[in-house]
């Protein structure tokens, strides 16, 4: 059984390599990234062998607890596309214990599992400072891997099991966003610690607290032995063993339950009328615009993108505030970032978001012009008011109304060029996304580095396009305020050129390669 499941998992991994070269490069890079990450930790752990045991303990236990927490939370918050979901084996009639054990062994064959295994082996080196610490480290090593792998499986199962209805899945995204927002203060606190001065004390406090929890006990057992408190070391090993036992029982029970539970059914509700379709003109462009707006509210993937829009500026603003940038200057930061994300996240891969449903645009002979403008209009409808109001509010906080033309010009420039470029990118360089109805944070089958390369390149291009406007605004700030008017002119000119150029070009690309786009969505 175990051997068969292992072979299945290996086969699944091998098949992932039978893809197009670009995706293959992406996968290899992510593998390399994971291995590089592991290597850094390995080197760190080996170096820690020569460090004072108290300090090594603080670092290993606090970071280790974080890693275990990650294994528990990430599958829950972001949902994992589970290739070996227990439910897929329901019809095979395999004994539950056998199946749950086999699935765990199969789960060892993944990049995160391999990384944590490497780390668990290397921490033996860190604690090879005597017989007892070494023995405890070896025992802990096994327990670390078991805790992380079983924990991740339990979380994945819960995510897949409790959140399996469509509507529940749709809300997962929102929950994770809230989670991220809730954790933000903690990160900000950690970021604000003066690490060179106070860092070790903070780590020691975290390690002391975590070492008594199941998250940290497994890391703390050899560490405590190394610093000399043998009693607590054994106690913590017991905690770790008990936790693994509990996790195993939980995982086994979940597997048993999943094997006999069908998918949950969602309650269906009825909607009358045509919604946004009634408010737009009855032309193809109008219908596509209305459809986009409807999808913004009904498709969890768009909803998450839109919820992120007001949240995105928080991080840079907080970072700048910690760096000591004055509050009034900070007022200028959020609006352009929000506009950029609004245009970008809704548009830049919308054909891939449609999935194969885009056939309707092909079959009905929708022109690229209609398709591109239809999708761009909702962004303009939301973005322009945001740009106007946002510019007014930022200028009010900034306090110098002479700057208003520059601020507004920059905002409009970013919105327009963002829409233009996204309209082109989405037909020229679409990349795989999660299917409609899947968790918005699930990983698509084949996401590659190509997509992130394209994303960063086009972000860079957008910044480049905004440089003249920022330059003119700076001239206005330093010298003659008339430069602010020039900045407005430049912003409008660049923005409109980017908007019409990008949407027009995108439309021509759509006309030319619509069948290839459909083929792309069908393939991924």
């Amino acid at each position: 059984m175990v051997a068969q499941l292992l072979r299945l998992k290996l086969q699944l991994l091998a098949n992932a390599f039978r893809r197009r070269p670009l995706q293959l490069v992406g996968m290899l890079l992510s593998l390399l990234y994971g291995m590089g990450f592991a290597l850094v930790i390995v080197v760190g752990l080996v170096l820690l062998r020569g460090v004072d045991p108290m300090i090594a303990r603080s670092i290993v236990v606090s970071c280790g607890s974080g890693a275990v927490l990650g294994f528990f939370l990430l599958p829950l918050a972001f949902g994992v596309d589970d290739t070996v979901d227990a439910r897929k084996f329901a019809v095979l009639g395999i004994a539950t214990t056998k199946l749950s054990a086999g699935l765990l062994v199969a789960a060892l064959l993944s990049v995160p599992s391999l990384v944590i295994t490497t780390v668990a082996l290397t921490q033996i080196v860190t604690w090879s400072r005597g017989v007892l610490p070494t023995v405890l480290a070896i025992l802990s090593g096994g327990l670390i891997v078991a805790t992380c792998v079983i924990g991740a499986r339990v979380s994945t199962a819960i995510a897949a099991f409790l959140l399996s209805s469509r509507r529940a899945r749709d809300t997962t995204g929102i929950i994770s966003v809230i989670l991220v927002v809730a954790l933000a203060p903690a990160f900000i606190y950690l970021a604000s610690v003066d690490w060179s001065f106070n860092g070790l004390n903070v780590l020691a406090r975290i390690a002391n607290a975590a070492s008594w929890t199941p998250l940290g006990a497994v890391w703390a057992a050899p560490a405590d032995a190394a610093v000399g408190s043998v009693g607590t070391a054994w106690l913590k090993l017991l905690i770790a063993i008990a936790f693994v036992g509990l996790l195993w029982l939980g995982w086994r029970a979940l597997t048993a339950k999943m094997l006999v539970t069908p998918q949950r059914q969602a309650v269906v509700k009825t909607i009358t009328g045509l919604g946004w379709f009634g408010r737009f003109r009855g032309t193809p462009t109008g219908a596509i615009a209305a459809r986009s707006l409807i999808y913004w509210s009904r498709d969890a993937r768009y909803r998450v993108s839109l919820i992120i829009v007001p949240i995105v500026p928080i991080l840079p603003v907080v970072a700048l505030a910690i760096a000591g940038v004055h509050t009034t200057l900070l007022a200028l930061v959020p609006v352009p970032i929000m506009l950029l994300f609004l245009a970008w996240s809704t548009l830049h891969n919308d054909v891939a978001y449609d999935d194969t449903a885009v056939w309707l645009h092909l079959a009905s002979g929708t022109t690229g012009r209609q398709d591109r403008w239809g999708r761009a209009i909702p962004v303009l409808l939301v973005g322009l008011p945001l740009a106007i109001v946002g510019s007014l509010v930022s200028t009010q906080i900034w306090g110098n109304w002479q700057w208003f033309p520059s601020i507004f010009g920059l905002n409009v420039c970013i919105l327009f060029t963002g829409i233009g470029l996204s309209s082109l990118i989405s037909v020229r360089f679409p990349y795989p996304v999660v299917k409609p109805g899947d968790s918005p944070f699930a990983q698509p089958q084949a996401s590659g580095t190509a997509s992130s390369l394209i994303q960063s390149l086009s972000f860079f291009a957008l910044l480049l396009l905004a440089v003249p406007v920022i330059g003119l605004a700076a001239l206005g700030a330093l010298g003659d305020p008339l430069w602010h008017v020039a900045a407005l002119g430049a912003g409008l000119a660049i923005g409109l050129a980017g908007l019409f150029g990008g949407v027009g070009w995108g439309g021509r690309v759509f006309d030319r390669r619509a069948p290839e786009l459909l083929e792309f969505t069908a393939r991924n």
Partner: protein
Amino acid sequence: MDNEPQPRSPQKPAARQNARPSATARKPTGQRKSAAPRKATSVSAKSATKIESELILSIVGLTKRFGDTVAVNAIDLDVRAGWFFGIVGPNGAGKTTTLSMITGLLRPTFGTVSVHGADVWSNPEVAKRNMGVLPDRLRLFDRLTGSQLLYYSGVLRGLTPDVVRERTADLAAAFGLDDALGRLVTDYSAGMTKKVALAASMIHSPRLLVLDEPFESVDPVSAANVTEILKKYAASGGTVVLSSHSMDLVQRICDHVAVIVNGEILANGTMDEVRAGESLEDRFVELAGGRRAAEGMEWLHSFSG
């Protein structure tokens, strides 16, 4: 307009001759035996005097290669107004590939497709306006409600909102979708989804309907309703091209049929010609390589504990 068609389908040179009007599509089972293969000749003498109906779909040398695999190999096909044309073939024979190329969803490697005289790939506007499409296994914009999806399909086809609303009501009644119009398509059952997609494919009253597996997962009552709608449509001059696995169904409702195996047309003509006195299913199995005797499966009959 109706010039003499060039010879096609080498297997059955007699096949093309009788382009009967569609009204006689259904042949009761009792008449099957009397419809002997040679009878076609006598019919053709009669139909030669009749004016052939307009050429709606013309396919010449249509080929699709995926890498080294030839999915569809130089297919030629003519479909005339009022025909109810069935395409049958085993799994993976190239039916969906062919229909996708006809409807402009898949770019052919070679060959031309024209609909009502307009080339699908060089003059897509006209060709696509005349075509209603039901693809197989492609998603719908399923976060729309049934009525929104019909509205979207209609308006994308250039209809005015008022016309779309009117037709939506008619289509909903005809397809039994009244109660479902306000629900999201993603919450529909497979059969309902098929029906709403079928309704959307004909909302702009096209001359040609290209339907890929229109009856798959549709219940028998709905299938009968849909058949009725399609027959009326064909009787009034509309043309239907559909693919199906169900030989019985194709034999019952289609008046012309083509058998595709391994990307090539093995038989093409009126239903009677292709059947050649047998049932379509028997004839199809014969053409597609014959029945495989189910030997060497004895273990299946001794049940395991």
